[in-house]
């Protein structure tokens, strides 16, 4: 059975999803660019790294990007929940570092349902919550011809199948283009695992 990316991406609205792996920021930006509307990015204020709007302009218009800087993880969750519930933004991206318990995960889920907006948690590997609708593992892939290739893999899906794709972002049409289903492309056979 072959799974089509368009069935899974953009992931279901009114739910929170999780993304892990080194390509998580690219995934979040691609999702933001695909959905349109205002995006709230919640991150902890102490971090040394930051989003570069000039680079992100390829994915979404930085005018639609709001950043909320919080003090700790609890504040991040509170801000994200409030923003999801209000429904004034289409996408809330939150950067989490600690494992997300079932209760906060469920709260986020309910808030997203109320506000009909999408939530996306960026988290390190292995700390996902059971409440998430889908979980993605994303990583950039080297390709001799293409320097934007990414591997997107669904590792958890409450309402669908698991699959993996090799995709790239097309800046002009603001669409994700599936290059091939993972494992079919010559040269990286078997890499999908």
């Amino acid at each position: 059975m072959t799974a089509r990316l368009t069935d899974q991406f953009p992931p279901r609205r009114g739910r929170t999803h999780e993304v892990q792996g080194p390509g998580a920021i690219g995934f979040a930006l691609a999702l933001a660019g695909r959905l349109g509307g205002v995006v709230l990015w919640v991150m902890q204020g102490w971090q040394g790294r930051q989003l570069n709007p000039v680079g992100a302009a390829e994915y979404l218009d930085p005018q639609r990007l709001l950043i909320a800087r919080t003090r700790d993880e609890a504040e991040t969750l509170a801000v994200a929940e409030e923003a999801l519930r209000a429904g004034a933004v289409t996408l809330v991206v939150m950067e989490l570092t600690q494992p997300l318990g079932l209760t906060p995960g469920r709260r986020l889920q309910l808030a997203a349902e109320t506000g009909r907006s999408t939530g996306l948690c960026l988290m390190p590997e292995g700390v996902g919550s059971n409440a998430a609708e889908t979980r993605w593992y994303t990583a950039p892939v080297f390709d001799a011809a293409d320097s934007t290739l990414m591997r997107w893999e669904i590792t958890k899906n409450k309402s669908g199948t698991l699959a993996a794709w090799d995709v790239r972002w097309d800046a002009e049409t603001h669409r994700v283009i599936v290059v091939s289903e993972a494992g079919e492309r010559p040269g990286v056979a078997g890499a999908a695992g």
Partner: protein
Amino acid sequence: MSLWFPRLASDRVLRAQPVDGPFALTLRQGNTERLYCLNPAGLRQGLTPGMPASDARAFCPDLQSRPAELSRDTRFLHALARWAGRYCPWVGLDGRDGLVLDVSGTVHLWGGQESAMIADMRQRLTRAGLAVRIGVADTRGAAWALAHYAEGIAPPGAASETLKPLPVEALRIEAKAALALQRLGVRSIGDLMALPRGTVSRRLGPGVLMRLDQALGARGEQVSPLAEPPHYGVRMTLPDPIGLSADVMAGAKRLLERLCARLKENEMGARVLCLTLRRVDQESQQVELRLARPLRDVARILPFFERGVGQVDAGYGIDLLRLEATQVEPLPTEQIAHMRGPEDGALEDLITRLGTRIGLENIQRFLPADSHIPERSFLIAPAAWSRAQGPWVALRPRPVQLFAPEPIGATGARPPRHFRWRRMALTTQRATGPERIAPEWWLEDDGWRRGLRDYWKVDTAQGRRLWLFHTPQDPGWFVQGEFA
């Protein structure tokens, strides 16, 4: 009653920084610096206002001077007018250095004696370091004349007697008319009153007689008081203390309705609101609310207070509520347009609500900036005080995230074949570059001490696409960003 501050400008400056010896404020008129205001020591040295400053310095070498600031003098005079409100509510400005008060209704508070009021006024002003001359009379013109030419009190109905010996300049007439009168040998007001009216107005125009009539009370003259600045504060005292947050919110709603009505009258919107709750034990607590944009809509503002009110400790109960808009901005009334979507304003409301939780300055947006330096090619501004700006153009590929440069052990001008970064062994498969960026020499930046940077986009065999730079002037390799 007329108050004249003969040395208002210099007194204002000397109040803050006292100076021994002659002191003057200078004002640039045309191309020359002229003395504007002098202290008594300066006047004793024979200096006069209007004198060129260089002459004055030659005349009096130890003169200290400073440029005059007319706008601050005006503000100071306004402050004095506000202070004079303690004597009567009807206070107006008189020229650049005077106040005029209508005290006819308030003298009885001083036992019917103007002199008692004047003594108090003089004592307070002298303590504040201000020279003042005060004249009291039935009319504004006569009071002005007394303040400037013969300090004192004219008894009621005796204005003409008091004014007679004063020079004609005391009538507030133009210098040209005063000079013409002097030439005619009319030196005092008494002389002028003796002249036939028709001749005077034929020769000198109607202005002189108008001023004379005003001084003598034959023609009315008003004192126009300064407009009271609108105060955006309302309060409510309760007969019984309340403690439930629903009750406090109901009280806040009533206050907010009154406040918003007042804001609407003046076409203003509140930006910062402060709700003070006083408990029965005299302890008071404040709930501050900062809005993402000026608002005067009760239904929209009220929910934002819920969080703050919920955190208040009511103790034995609250018996006084006070709501003040501490910062207001103009908010003109707008026609409700059918084109605007219902979600308009929802984002600002969200920003306000998140702002009550994490602080309004922590919700930010990016603004484009004109710089080639990657970390300065954008600005971060609080979303509540900025508008989204565009367009965003990237002339060359830029990473989606930036971090402080992290050194990697490598040498040579070309990207290393193998390197370690964040405990990962990476192999370069493709390197695009170099893109040379020179530091902005006009800005001091510690991060750019190493000089020029040659940026490379490095695609590794492991997948990660990194933004490396090499510093040829002080060799070293660093990772500064990562592409998606």
